[in-house]
């Protein structure tokens, strides 16, 4: 992640050899390359040794509460969209050690932790995910306080974006203005053109670092034809997007904090926290202080947490959000409404994960529409 604007100059690389080379070059530059892999029936983000580790010729079928891998177009690399993982697990790991404490008689000493800062190269970050990263940049550097470990990892990461030429079954990025084409926040952005006679990636350059890597790939300059073909593929994906967020959802939800709908949703919601864990922007965490068996050393860890748990809002005397309805309201209004007050942008990027991975298929776009439709009907 460095510059935000892409330069106009685009390149074309061969799909197989080019991608293989890209991963090899990044690895040779010392990056730890991470990208999509097919594991246990889902596309997850894991370390890649070479392009052979990428899922090829597979698609995902997604719907509310439903995720399935099926056969896709033969030889195509990025025919699927996002799975249960997001890059936050690398930039903001599920569990991080903050520091240690060593007992010394009556007192204790603090041992600071040198943060683990691998230089990652992310292969296949989708446009909505780039936006999610930019959202976290604001969360973890809020003007008053900054999380140095996050910033260091983020700064070191090399981002290879992939524009979406397929719309996932639960995606709604087009209505959130976060995709399906990346407009910034990448070092390189690829668009896959898979035709019978020709299978290539159009490569856009988004930073100086990207420029340096692309120079090593020895790609040809992209023709206007390549660029417009890539654009057309992405536009087609935008047109096929099955879901859509209602307009002005922020003020809508703010007007409806006491809607009956929250109770209706809570009859279905299991408070399982899946949505917050798969969401690429949810950042809530808790701090755990524990001692070892000797009692001489204590460790402070930070781990992902979710507003769906009872403990989350606990204060002496009881939790603030006791009802499932108020916990669901916190989740949905935070993503779509109060995030604007906090960070002047939406906390939802329209990736659809929370819809797909909800065991009962609760759909945030549908719930927003239901609240809109209930307005005026007391």
């Amino acid at each position, binding site marked *: 992640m460095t510059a935000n604007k892409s330069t106009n100059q685009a390149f074309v690389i061969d799909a197989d050899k080019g991608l293989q080379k890209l991963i090899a070059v990044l690895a040779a530059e010392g990056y730890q390359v991470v990208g999509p892999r097919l594991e246990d029936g889902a596309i997850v983000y894991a370390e890649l040794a070479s392009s052979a580790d990428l899922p090829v010729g597979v698609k995902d079928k997604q719907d509310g509460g439903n995720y399935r891998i099926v056969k896709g177009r033969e030889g195509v690399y990025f025919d699927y969209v996002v799975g249960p993982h997001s890059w936050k697990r690398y930039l903001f790991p599920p569990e991080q050690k903050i*520091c240690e*404490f060593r007992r010394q008689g009556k007192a*204790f000493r603090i041992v600071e932790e040198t943060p683990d800062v691998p230089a990652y190269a992310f292969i296949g970050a989708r446009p909505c995910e780039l936006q999610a990263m930019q959202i976290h940049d604001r969360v973890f550097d809020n003007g008053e306080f900054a999380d*140095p470990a996050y910033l260091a990892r983020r700064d070191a990461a090399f981002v290879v974006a992939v524009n979406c030429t397929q719309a996932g079954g639960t995606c709604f990025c087009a209505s959130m203005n976060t995709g399906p084409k990346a407009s910034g926040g990448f070092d390189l952005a690829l668009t896959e053109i898979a035709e019978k006679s020709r299978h290539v990636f159009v490569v856009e350059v988004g930073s100086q670092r990207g420029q340096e890597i692309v120079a090593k790939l020895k790609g040809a300059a992209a023709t206007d034809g390549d660029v417009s073909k890539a654009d057309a593929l992405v536009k087609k994906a935008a047109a096929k997007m099955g879901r859509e967020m209602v307009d002005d959802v922020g003020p809508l939800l703010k007007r409806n904090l006491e809607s009956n709908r929250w109770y209706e949703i809570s009859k279905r919601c299991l408070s399982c926290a899946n949505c917050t864990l798969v969401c690429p922007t949810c950042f809530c*965490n808790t701090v755990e202080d524990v001692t070892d068996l000797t009692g001489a050393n*204590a460790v402070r860890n930070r781990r992902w947490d979710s507003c769906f748990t009872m403990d989350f809002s606990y*204060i002496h005397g009881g939790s603030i959000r006791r009802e499932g309805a108020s916990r669901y309201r916190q989740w949905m209004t935070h993503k779509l409404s*109060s995030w*604007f007050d906090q960070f002047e942008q939406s906390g939802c990027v329209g990736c659809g994960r929370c819809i797909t991975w909800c065991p009962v298929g609760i759909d945030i776009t549908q719930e927003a529409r239901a609240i809109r439709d209930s307005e005026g009907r007391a």
Partner: protein
Amino acid sequence: MNQMAALVDPMVPAPFRIERVKKELSDTFTLDLVPAERKRSISFLPGQFNMLYVFGVGEIPISISGDPGVGDKIVHTTRAVGNVTNAMWKMGVGQTIGVRGPFGTAWPVEEAEGSDVVIVTGGIGLAPLRPAIYQILANRQAYGNVCIMYGARTPEDILFRKELEKWRGQFDMQVDVTVDHATGRWGGKVGVVTKLIGRGGFDPHHTVAFVCGPEVMMRYAVDTLVERGVSEKDIHVSLERNMKCGIGFCGHCQLGGDFVCKDGPVFPFDAVADRFVIQEL
């Protein structure tokens, strides 16, 4: 990148040594803390809090209850109610406590100059207001009438009793105390603290009010102040939420669009009024 990694992590506490322990009430105590390693001057604003860490047990938000004019120690007054606070209760002089802070917004003590000041508080809520009282008293002539209205459960639960008595005897402020239940030889007022507001000697149109206590009590206090004619923007409340970081990272303290740790804990009432009426927000 390396430059950023070198930034200090705001989640790592600094060690402080307990210099003095004072039992205030049967369940409430005050700790004076001094930096354990390097000397550093301590500055904070009345109403701000620190995250206090007890070795291996946990970390909790506690307001600063000391005098902002005293720069060599920090003072916290805590009621033992659970895990961390009970562990802290058992600690003694010489032991270490981890401190992160000060965090959060302050009582607008300077902005209140020229006005009457009304302080309405109950129970442990007096602790976060004591620094404001010290600061006002240090510059007493800058203010109009100053009224403290304090409610405790029983006469035995009156926090900082000696100081309340002293302030009351100073002829330059009104100090009213009430208890929920009279015990022993209590001859003072009985009833909720909000009843004192009606009698308070202040000019509602030129008053700044600081309110801190349980949320229900604050709700009634605000209502009564507004009834008397104090404007919502001149009423300041201190809110309490679960807090794991104090710096806007953990999400626990959210109240709609505000992080209570960073945008609060002290809010002008008109900024949170809409959310105050919604259950379980």
